[in-house]
């Protein structure tokens, strides 16, 4: 496949900002609307015609790359295509209800929330689910607060959370934010939890062990039942990071493995948009014993209909109202459309695609057998350079240099959405970039709208707000 990305520029400057295209001072009449000291009578705004505006945004979109253009195998991120019908459902005017309306007048809304609570509980093997946390990391934090409330309610003061060294950085941050000391767990030679190290790490101070399964290398933690028993025997809880749930969907459930708490990344597993910082959702499921600590409100079904309620020993709110409602609508729509068979088919194809792709690339994959993702190594070539060169072959590259267990790692997760032709394009990009000359790697990318980025200057002199755009330095 040949690839040349659109590149609108003039004098080496990219498509200008709207404010650079035009700035017109508009007079407005704010008399009597608000106190005078809070209002302005003049605003400087870009005054452009609709076609000018449409071209601006279309040009920007052409200089961008997305899963709607080609494969996006960013390992551990599960960059699924977001089906457009879920957008249609979320755009339905009936979804636009005010969150302060009385329960009796929003039975449909509450029914959907209750349905999603039930779907997720069923998928994860949990007894109760809160939909309130606004992102995956917020879900982790919520889950750890629930664990803390549980221990405290028993007068059990514990200080540590155990996390494998290969875990997502958010695990460490969530545990630390909740006030815990983090105990880092090394991996064994096979890339799984080191059982001897785990045995040594577990103590009466262990509040929880945080795991993802399959782990960051895509490997199933075969000892999970023993691990759960060890943690529970010491009075600790087992936390499941839902990052890799796409590998198990419809086939195995964290609750059945002995996990007590889990979060779901709906932007990964259930195909809602990856936020770009926008509204997201990170629901949290728990076993029966922990349900009373979940955030408020939850939704339950009574003889009189659906109602919102506050769990008995709730940790309080972690976000406003029911959470980011429209994201939840999209997740619900996705699950309902796929059904049991569709979800199980998604995980099967995700695993098949990862294994087919790995079989077609010339890079070594040191750890296996793997599920939905694999960590290839670019050996003596720099993984970031190979990744940048892959851009020139028209694909998004994998996650690079993580997990650190694999040197020059290229963590690759094609997801179930790619067909054979697109997996072959990906394999070609891997192999061609890997075989290219040093010079080609060091100067890549050359066919994208943005070329080699000066990462050193970006890190040493970051411009972190729009106001910095005026800095010449």
């Amino acid at each position, binding site marked *: 496949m040949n690839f040349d990305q659109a590149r609108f520029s003039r004098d080496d400057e990219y498509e200008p900002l709207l404010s650079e295209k035009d700035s017109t001072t508009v007079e407005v009449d704010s008399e009597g609307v608000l106190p005078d000291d809070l209002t302005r009578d003049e605003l400087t705004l870009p005054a452009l015609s609709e076609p000018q505006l449409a071209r601006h945004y279309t040009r920007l979109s052409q200089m961008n790359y997305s899963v709607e253009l080609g494969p996006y195998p960013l390992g551990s991120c599960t960059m699924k295509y977001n089906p457009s019908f879920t957008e249609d459902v979320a755009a339905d005017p009936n979804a636009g209800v005010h969150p302060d309306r009385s329960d009796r007048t929003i039975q449909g809304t509450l029914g959907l929330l209750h349905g999603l609570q039930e779907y997720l509980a069923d998928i994860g093997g949990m007894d109760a689910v809160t939909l309130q946390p606004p992102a995956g990391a917020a879900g982790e934090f919520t889950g750890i607060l629930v664990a803390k409330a549980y221990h405290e309610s028993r007068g059990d003061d514990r200080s540590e959370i155990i996390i494998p060294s290969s875990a997502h950085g958010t695990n460490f941050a969530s545990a630390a934010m909740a006030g815990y000391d983090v105990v880092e767990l090394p991996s064994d030679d096979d890339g799984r939890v080191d059982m001897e190290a785990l045995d040594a790490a577990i103590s009466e101070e262990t509040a929880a062990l945080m795991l993802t399964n399959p782990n960051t290398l895509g490997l199933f933690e075969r000892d999970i039942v023993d691990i759960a028993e060890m943690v529970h025997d010491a009075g600790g809880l087992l936390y499941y990071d839902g990052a890799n749930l796409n590998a198990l969907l419809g086939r195995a459930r964290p609750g059945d493995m002995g996990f007590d708490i889990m979060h779901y990344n709906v932007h990964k597993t259930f195909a809602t948009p990856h936020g770009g910082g926008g509204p997201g959702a990170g629901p949290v499921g728990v076993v029966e014993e922990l349900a009373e600590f979940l955030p408020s409100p939850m939704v339950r079904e009574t003889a009189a209909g659906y109602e919102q309620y506050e769990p008995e020993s709730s940790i309080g709110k972690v976000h406003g109202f029911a959470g980011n409602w429209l994201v939840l609508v999209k997740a619900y729509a996705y699950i309902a459309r796929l059904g049991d068979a569709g979800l199980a088919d998604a995980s099967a194809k995700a695993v098949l695609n990862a294994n087919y792709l790995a079989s077609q690339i010339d890079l070594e994959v040191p750890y296996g057998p793997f599920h939905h993702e694999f960590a290839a190594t670019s050996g003596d070539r720099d993984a970031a350079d190979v990744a940048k060169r892959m851009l020139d072959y028209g694909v998004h590259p994998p996650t690079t*240099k993580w997990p650190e267990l694999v040197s020059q790692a290229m963590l690759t997760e094609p997801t179930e959405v790619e067909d054979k032709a697109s997996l072959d394009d990906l394999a070609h990009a891997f192999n061609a970039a890997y075989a290219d000359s040093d010079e080609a790697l060091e100067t890549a990318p050359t066919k994208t709208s943005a070329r080699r980025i000066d*990462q*050193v200057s970006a*890190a*040493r002199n970051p411009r972190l707000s729009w106001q910095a755009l005026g800095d010449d330095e």
Partner: protein
Amino acid sequence: MFEIPDDRKYLESHEWTTTEGDAVRIGISDFAQDELGDVVFVELPAEGDELAAGEEFGVVESIKAVSDLYAPISGTVTAVNEELFDAPELLNDDPYGDGWMLELEPADESEFDDLLSPEEYREQTE
């Protein structure tokens, strides 16, 4: 070949310390800055902080990696090179000079005996 001055001692984790005077200086070696690549961020302790030999005292971050820094000897921090906060590139340009990190008042000078000599450190890097 990396520069390894004879007038100081080294840690296996690539920190150096001078050994003369009331206050000794601490930094990272030429080998370390080369391995790290372009340094973009440095985190150091505050003046007056007490450090124990082998204890983590800060973090150095480059485009390629984030590394912990370890104290070669025990003592009290008497000065911090604040220029590194605005110009972390000093660590790459002059690791033994302008790229120094801390000055420490040593608590126990016998700890110098546990450190690597320039010859021993050279062997380690080869």
